[in-house]
């Protein structure tokens, strides 16, 4: 058989093959699509974000497409074009340029932490491409929106408000140490906590910046123990959170209340500390901010979590990044519906009008005032829940009262 495929035969069939491929391409083009670029840290040190979030994003997009796609565009299907930025901000900018100029995407979404957001900003403004970041603490470019917590009214205010609110549960906080990871977001949150805590009657007795390169935080914990503050408050990266808790366990220190962000409320910390250390330090005097908690009194969040667990092909437990990615998909859907066009400027204008009210089945995050972007292109309502761990590794929401399952355990 093989000898039948002569060079002449192949050359003779080439025009036919070309026409056939062109026809197939035309048929594909007839099925309307909206190309959305997805920049994820698929490799590198931030890859846990994409491992947790990407399956949820893909599941939701598949679901949106199966339910008729973008109706204002005649049922156009969302097509995700995925790029890996290798967890390096410079690569984020490079991948954005590729998605925009090579793949001609209508908008970009992605994990995009603050450094990635800053790196991508000149590019998205240059090409005027609406971009939605899942985690950035700010939105520098005029075409960039973020679902993350702003440093001031997101992270710092939530932690300061909760520290102040502990007084309502007979655990008045008078003194605090600010212990943030010494990186971009940590320095910003420290700056805001410095003013917000005294406004709530809490005296800042010291600042203990946590070195992001350190292998051990015993020295930091020794300093904290010597100061014996009522609370140790700060934003940290997972690694610093884990090392600080290891040091706390090593010193058997339980005299302060620890208040932090997602590293304190993510399952990863149990995995890293192990069950014994975890039980000793995580279930005592420790509270973390959370976008998601299994027990939160938010029906849409619980339904989504159950659905993702059963059909979502997740690679890990439902976590903060899972819910954040799912919410991104719903914002993207609403923006595209409002735009009714694949034009970038139309989508940019539509993002300004996105509004998912409280109680909407598509609102998965704990946002009592619904989800809409303010003039700074960050969520208007940026509050978060505070949670505590049980010995069975389950989270309980303790604040704010709207979502709380129980009282803070101190």
């Amino acid at each position, binding site marked *: 058989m093989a000898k039948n495929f002569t060079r002449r035969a192949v050359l003779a069939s080439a025009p036919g093959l070309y026409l056939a491929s062109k026809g197939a391409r035309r048929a594909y083009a007839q099925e309307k699509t909206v190309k959305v670029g997805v920049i994820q840290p698929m490799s590198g040190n931030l890859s846990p974000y994409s491992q947790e979030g990407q399956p949820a994003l893909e599941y939701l997009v598949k679901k949106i497409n199966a339910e008729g796609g973008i109706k204002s565009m005649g049922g156009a299907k969302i097509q995700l074009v*995925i*790029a890996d930025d290798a967890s390096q901000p410079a690569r984020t900018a490079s991948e954005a*340029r*590729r998605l925009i100029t090579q793949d001609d995407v209508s908008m970009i979404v992605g994990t995009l932490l603050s*450094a990635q957001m800053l790196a991508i900003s*000149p590019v998205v403004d240059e090409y005027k491409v609406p971009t939605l970041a899942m985690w950035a603490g700010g939105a520098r470019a005029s075409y960039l929106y973020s679902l993350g917590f702003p440093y001031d009214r997101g992270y710092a205010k939530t932690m300061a408000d909760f520290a102040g609110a502990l007084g309502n549960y007979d655990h008045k906080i008078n003194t605090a140490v600010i212990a943030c990871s010494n990186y971009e977001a940590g320095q910003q949150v420290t700056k805001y906590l410095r003013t917000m805590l005294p406004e709530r009657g809490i005296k800042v007795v010291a600042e203990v910046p946590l070195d992001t390169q350190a292998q051990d935080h015993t020295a930091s914990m020794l300093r904290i123990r010597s100061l014996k503050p009522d609370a140790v408050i700060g934003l940290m990266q997972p690694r610093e959170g884990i090392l600080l808790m290891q040091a706390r366990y090593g010193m058997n220190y339980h005299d302060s209340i620890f208040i932090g962000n997602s590293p304190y409320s993510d399952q990863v910390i149990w995995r890293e500390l192990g069950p014994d250390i975890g039980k000793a330090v995580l279930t005592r005097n420790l509270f973390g901010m959370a976008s998601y908690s299994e027990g939160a009194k938010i029906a849409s969040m619980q339904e989504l979590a159950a659905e993702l667990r059963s059909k979502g092909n997740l690679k890990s437990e439902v976590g903060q990044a899972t819910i954040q990615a799912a919410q991104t998909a719903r914002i993207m859907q609403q923006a595209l519906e409002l735009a009714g066009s694949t034009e970038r400027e139309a989508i940019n204008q539509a993002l300004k009008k996105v509004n998912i009210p409280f109680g909407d089945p598509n609102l998965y995050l704990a946002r009592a005032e619904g989800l809409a972007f303010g003039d700074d292109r960050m969520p208007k309502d940026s509050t978060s829940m505070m949670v505590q761990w049980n010995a069975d590794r389950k989270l309980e929401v303790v604040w704010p009262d709207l979502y709380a399952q129980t009282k803070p355990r101190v």
Partner: protein
Amino acid sequence: MRSGAFRFLGNPVFWLVLAAAATMPLWLSPYYLGVATIALFYVGLALSWNIVAGIAGQLSLGHSVFMGIGGLLSSALLLKLGINMWLGMAIAAAISAVLGAFIAWLDFRFRLSHLSFALITLAFAEMGQLAAVGSEFLGGASGLFLPADHGSLLDFEFGGQRGYFYLLFTASMVCLVANLVILNTPLGYYLRAMRDNENAAQAIGVALLRNKIIAMMISAVLTSIMGTAYARYSGFVDPYQFASPNVSVEVVLFATIGGLGTVLGPLVGAGFLVVFGEIVRGQFGGTLPGLHFFIDGVLIIVVILLMPRGVVPTFVEWWDRRHAAAPKDPGMIAEVPTKT
């Protein structure tokens, strides 16, 4: 300057390649032009580093400090004090030169071995990053965000992709010419003599301190200028990129794989590996994340095992053998360091 540099610069193939590269903005898509611009940045860094490490045999792991000074300080001077970035670039380059001279003096004063010198420069790199992250003037951990580019050359604005390609193209060519000139002037011979045997070089009258300082200062200034140029191109100056010791390690890899101590080695190493890595990640990053890291690793192992002197010297040797050509051109190939 000896005839070697003229032979190199008079080679029509060199000018043909240069002309072809200069036309890239006319036919490359913005994405690939961006990749080419990043590659040129690394080419410039690798060539600058090559002066100290390849020609003079001082394995510096601290060049990220000079890049950080070039990128962060010039940007901070613009943003915080309103100092024009051209002047900022000159100030940063001058400070880099002074720091470079100090490091070279340390090396001379304490007669550091290769390992000690590498470790001391690595310590400088680590301190540099900590200083950058801890300094509010330099933007702290948040880095610095430069104002939008309006294409005003007087304000060090080059008006988009094409402009920045030509800026980095010119800067990297300056680095190439600097290598070429050094290799073919008495300084190059002194540096190579010092690299091969410092005591013997001193015995025949080579001024160790003076030459070490000159080499390090030239290298530091060029690295700093590359840092400023890349900072303006990227718009966001991230201390974890600009002052990261990882940059030094990347540059070492590029130059070593291409061929340490040669002019074309760092150019080929950085040019190929950066472009290849970017394209592989761009094409397969979504489906096979991390593939580019894996391929990079395999390439490094293969080159080190099969071409221990680097790709360019191996190729030149092969070419010479095959064509029984004229003696080796010192501008193209030089011996690998032998000092231990």
